[in-house]
């Protein structure tokens, strides 16, 4: 196979796959009433409908606001804490039982408490998203610090670098690629829990849009909402990957 053909082929395969799925969907939709399974065209129409009066955009912007504020909150707590716990074995040992027990609890299980503590509105959803991003970030940061090659610290000690210099100029940059992995994973888990959090108690946002559409039996809106969630999630994930690649290139071999 020559290169040109290979390139076309590699683009062709996913396109064919997608088109195949859409046709199958359209075909299947023929057997059900639209309330049960709307076809792809119905969903596109619903999407346009939602877009015309700005409803969709206000849901999107509130969702993005919750997502980013929760994510940044998680970054600002999980990374310093992870750097600390990664560096000090005693602190890590002290925290370990708590982390081991908290980690398997689905962020969704916190919802009732979140409502009790924070009332309704943005706060419970932000709390759920925060939790879902926090643990992957924390654990990745701890691991990243622990896996710093001993030789980096040996060299720093040999040249007489002070504690602060070692932390800022060796530990943080050496752990950085590992922390990036955690940030990347957390984008995925946070986005998934955004919708879940909004479905449970919020009065706005993409999750709410989906639940609310069900109350009106607007199945086409449900699917349109799901489509938007998927596409936005993909876009954020891609942007994150670009950022990661950029930083990785800067970091070279690591």
């Amino acid at each position: 196979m020559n290169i040109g053909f290979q390139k076309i082929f590699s683009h062709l395969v996913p396109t064919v796959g997608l088109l195949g799925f859409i046709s199958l969907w359209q075909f299947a939709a023929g057997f059900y009433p639209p309330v049960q399974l709307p076809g792809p065209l119905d969903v596109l129409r619903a999407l346009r409908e939602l877009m015309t009066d700005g409803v969709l955009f206000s849901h999107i912007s509130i969702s993005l606001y919750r997502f980013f504020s929760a994510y940044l909150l998680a970054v600002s707590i999980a990374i310093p804490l992870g750097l600390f716990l990664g560096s000090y074995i005693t602190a890590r040992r002290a925290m370990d039982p708590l982390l081991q027990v908290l980690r398997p609890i689905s962020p969704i299980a916190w919802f009732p408490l979140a409502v009790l503590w924070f009332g309704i509105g943005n706060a419970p959803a932000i709390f759920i998203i925060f939790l879902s991003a926090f643990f992957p970030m924390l654990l990745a940061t701890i691991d990243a610090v622990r896996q710093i090659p001993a030789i980096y610290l040996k060299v720093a000690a040999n040249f007489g670098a002070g504690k602060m210099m070692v932390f800022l100029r060796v530990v943080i940059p050496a752990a950085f690629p590992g922390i990036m992995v955690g940030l990347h994973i957390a984008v995925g888990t946070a986005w998934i829990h955004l919708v879940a959090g909004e479905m449970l108690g919020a009065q706005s946002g993409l999750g709410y849009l989906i639940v609310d559409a069900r109350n009106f039996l607007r199945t086409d809106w449900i699917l349109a909402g799901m489509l938007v969630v998927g596409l936005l999630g993909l876009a954020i994930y891609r942007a994150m990957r670009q950022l990661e690649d950029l930083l990785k290139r800067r970091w070279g071999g690591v």
Partner: protein
Amino acid sequence: MGQQMTSGTMSLRGVAKYYRNPNGERMAALSPLDLDIAASEFVCLVGPSGCGKTTLINLLAGFDQPSCGSITIDGKPVTKPDSERIMIFQDYGLYPWKSALGNVMFALEAKGVAKSEAKATALHHLEIVGLKDSAERYPHQLSGGMKQRVAIARALAASPQVLFMDEPFAALDAFTRLRLQDELLRIWQEQQPTVVFVTHDLDEAIYLGSKVILMAPYPGRLRKIVDIQLPRPCDRTDSVFAAYRRELFREFQLVHEEAMDYAI
């Protein structure tokens, strides 16, 4: 390099290092030894793997503590690493997130030298190892030989009295290795640090060392110490070189055979 007359003199008395093997038995990585190294001497530790070369050099550099005995450098006991004594590793130990220049500057900034001065000094040391033009390159953009040159420049930037080198050229191709041996000799002659150089290559040891210490394993110990009287750099095809080579090689082979017997 600004060191005083008698700096970098090492003295080991009854130094040993024991580890416990998985069965809990005490194993001597290094059995008790005495050793003196004079200032500005170039000492090569040579021997088969497992004979305690790395253990010994780590004790000297203060990365590890002996199980018994005392190590002093210039009369002071060695308790921790010191920027007067820099270790150069086989796998370079460069920071991949820093350029060659940044890596060398690290040595200076660790001492509290201001950035602009550190930069000028670092560039000077990169020039000494012939890498001034690669100052902005990152480690992954450098060959193995160039990386080790950066590590040497970084060590020199700290103006150490002692250089410890643990098989620094073992990962390099033969040609690069020979060139770096010559560069190291030139630097040693110009700046006169004390050098402790670990290798498992007998020719490298004779070519570089003013003193070659042959070690033997099981347990790790000093087997033979030979003073090498050759001009530096010397001719590797010279008959005196060949004589040293014969003398050490016979002993080296015996050590190897014993090590083999032990392994079988």
